[in-house]
């Protein structure tokens, strides 16, 4: 059940009314209801893999309790290890088994041997990378003494499977989300209205922007061998817009849906394309994942409290693993490592400027950062490293091509994409100090309603079919 589908709108409406009408007052009943609808939501994807969520929940619930109850360091470590092995084992098997088996076979071939890798036709369960990381952080945090283990089985299961963020995040921390399952909920109009605004803005970013731009990106990448450098550059920019619209759109719908039920999810994007350097970009892009890697990979490796050399290695490892998290393909790994290298190279010159707001005078550094991010996204988007390499070589060598943008798509398609992209960028710029662009609760009523109607009509205009979210494949 996709967020941008008629089915989800019906599902959310029904859940909303049942939730506030019958279940919200009693915590136990409410959490049972949320668990049931979350499992139903996931079953709409593929009921076979529901067992994995249940397994992950059972193991981590028990590991959490065992770690919390004992003072024996060895026992704590043993249960933490069980949790880590189970979660990474599931993830590794479903996501990386085929990739590593194939790579191993190729490596062995280099030495003149033949290895027939065990090829299993493994389907990737949707959301696996997100909920395994969420539950992993739970047991790690208990082990580190940051949070106590919960004894409320239903709350914990509902926390793992909470449908707004189950399939593509934000990857929540137990310390933030789990206590909310123990709170009493009272309907609050301002929170619900904020949720609606988030959903509307998310739908606009996904349906009107990302889905309008997507066919143009597909066309440019399909014909990258014959396209000129200008078209290739446009393709890189447009993919950056597409993936942002797609993923930030998803995140806003998730946050908005949770808000309708009285839950607060963490922000996942903070206007990342107005970053003035890569450090700032990574503090604004896919925040829930980058902070996860910071807390559970980068810092345990030693962070920056070590030699310069070691620090550089820590950064490269963190970015490399973060790239691998996206999928079993060299494109993601190289994308991650190149981000790490660029991060290291640009760091001494610019430094992070998280706390100052972006001004017009910062435009040059904003444009340069966007350019770098867009070019690196070419590797992320390409089918394989070879295609990405040729794409980038043709682009930077300013190769003249035989196909221009207007041969790949009609003028109307380009105009629609340009218009919606312009609206997205303009709104994000105007509202860059706010959590999201449609945070307009303080605006005059007429202006607000006009804004809502414009966005609603744009979504209805661009909506054609249920188009998948890019991050669902991860």
């Amino acid at each position: 059940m996709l967020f941008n589908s008629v089915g989800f709108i019906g599902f959310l409406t029904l859940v909303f009314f049942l939730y506030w009408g019958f279940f919200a007052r009693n915590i136990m009943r409410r959490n049972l209801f949320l668990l049931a609808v979350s499992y139903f939501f996931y079953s709409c994807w593929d009921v076979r893999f529901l067992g994995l969520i249940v397994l992950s929940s059972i193991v981590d619930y028990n590991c959490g309790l065992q770690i919390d109850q004992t003072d024996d360091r060895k026992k704590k470590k043993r249960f933490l290890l069980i949790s880590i092995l189970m979660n990474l084992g599931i993830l590794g098997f479903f996501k990386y088994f085929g990739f590593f088996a194939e790579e191993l076979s190729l490596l062995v071939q280099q030495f003149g041997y033949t290895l027939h890798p065990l090829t299993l036709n493994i389907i990737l369960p949707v959301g696996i990378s997100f909920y395994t990381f969420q539950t992993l952080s739970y047991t790690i945090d208990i082990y580190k003494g940051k949070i106590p283990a919960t004894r409320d089985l239903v709350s914990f299961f509902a926390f793992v499977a909470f449908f707004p963020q189950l399939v593509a995040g934000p990857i929540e921390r137990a310390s933030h989300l789990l206590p909310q399952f123990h709170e009493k909920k009272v309907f609050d109009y301002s929170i619900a209205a904020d949720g609606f605004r988030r959903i509307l803005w998310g739908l606009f970013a996904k349906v009107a922007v990302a889905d309008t731009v997507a066919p143009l990106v597909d066309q440019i990448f399909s014909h990258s061998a014959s396209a000129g450098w200008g078209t290739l550059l446009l393709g890189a920019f447009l993919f950056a817009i597409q993936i942002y619209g797609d993923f930030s759109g998803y995140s806003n719908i998730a946050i908005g849906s949770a808000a309708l039920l009285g839950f607060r999810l963490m922000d996942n994007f903070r206007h990342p394309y107005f970053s003035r350097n890569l450090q700032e970009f990574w503090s604004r892009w896919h925040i829930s994942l980058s902070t996860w890697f910071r807390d559970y990979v980068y810092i345990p490796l030693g962070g920056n409290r070590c030699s310069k050399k070691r620090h550089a290695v820590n950064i490269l490892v963190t970015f490399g693993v973060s790239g691998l998290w996206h999928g079993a393909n060299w494109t993601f790994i190289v994308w991650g490592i190149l981000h790490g290298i660029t991060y290291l190279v640009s760091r001494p010159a610019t430094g992070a400027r998280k706390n100052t707001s972006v001004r017009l005078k910062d435009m040059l550094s904003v444009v340069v950062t966007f350019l770098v991010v867009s070019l690196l996204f070419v590797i992320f988007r390409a089918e394989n490293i070879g295609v990405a390499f040729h794409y980038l070589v043709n682009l930077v060598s300013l190769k003249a091509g035989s196909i221009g943008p207007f041969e790949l798509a009609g003028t109307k398609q380009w105009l629609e994409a340009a218009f919606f992209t312009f609206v997205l960028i303009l709104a994000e710029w105007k509202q860059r100090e706010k959590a999201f662009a449609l945070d307009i609760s303080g605006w005059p009523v007429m202006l607000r309603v006009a804004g809502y109607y414009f966005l609603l009509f744009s979504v209805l205009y661009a909506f054609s079919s249920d188009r998948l979210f890019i991050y669902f494949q991860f």
Partner: protein
Amino acid sequence: MKKSLFKIGLIIVFPLILIGMINYGIDPDYQLNRSYIKPLVSALLEGKNIAGPVNLNSRVLKKEWLAEMEVPEVLVLGSSRTLNLSHEVFPGKTFYNASVTSGSVDDMAGFLGIILDKGKFPEEIIVCADQWLFGDRFNDRSWLGLRNEIHRFCEAAGMKGPASPWQMKNDYLKDRVVKIFSGRYTLRAMRLRGKSEPFVVSDSLAAGKMMILPDGARKLPAKIENTPLHESEELALQYCYGSADENFSDLQPEKIQQLSDMLHFLKQRGCRVSVFVPPYHPKAFDYYQKSPGYEGIFKAEEAVAEVAAQYQFRVIGSSDPNQLALSGGDFYDGVHLKKEAISRLFKSKSW
């Protein structure tokens, strides 16, 4: 809470009702109100021609039409690439062209599902095996209009359908809801208000109009039929650059299996099947041969030939226009043969 919900509801529901009313009321492309189809079917059964936007809802039109007519001796199942194949090619035989724009194997199953109820099958069936049908890029779902018939045929033929009956119905309803509330359709409705192209029933052929003929074939306006070579070459390249349907390297085994199951069923029913592999414009063919990422076209042709051979059915045509002695002037764009050329191709075979 009630007051708050009412406020939110009003903001969302009011524009939706307005858009739905405009779309349903004006319905500029005949997408929502289909009461016009039955009179058209009656006129076609009486041997009249219809001019107008004949590509719209052509599945529903042909579904009703085929249900009302006798089983023809020669039946064409295909896409726009066989739509201009007419009865003149098969003299002395009853003929019906059930091709539809963006026709797929599912559409073919749907039309065969209608024939299934008649208890008799055509002697000769021409199946158009468009190369893109076997890749992963072609995603047209217009066949949902034939969902019940597809299900009936799949049950009878033991063929795996595109989805379960429940899923197909669900998808069809979702598509209807999307159409009713489509903002794009609203803008079109406001622009075309009262000026939609009408359907005109006629006894004669109008040179400048697109028409559907009483044998199911489509007649294109003379301007398209007479497209000059340089224009067809331009259109061929535009097609290559603009269409993603051919951009696949690997075949979808389940789609080949669908074709195989359908042919197996027709073999059992004693039908003679000719599988048509439609050619590309020489410019388009050249482009696909030289560019990476289009290997699927050639694999599809091979796979189709293998499946046809399995049931001893003949293959007509080829992706390569040179093999069929066709030149650029025989096409009116990258993938469509002119009427004269497709007739020539089929007349050269024995029927």
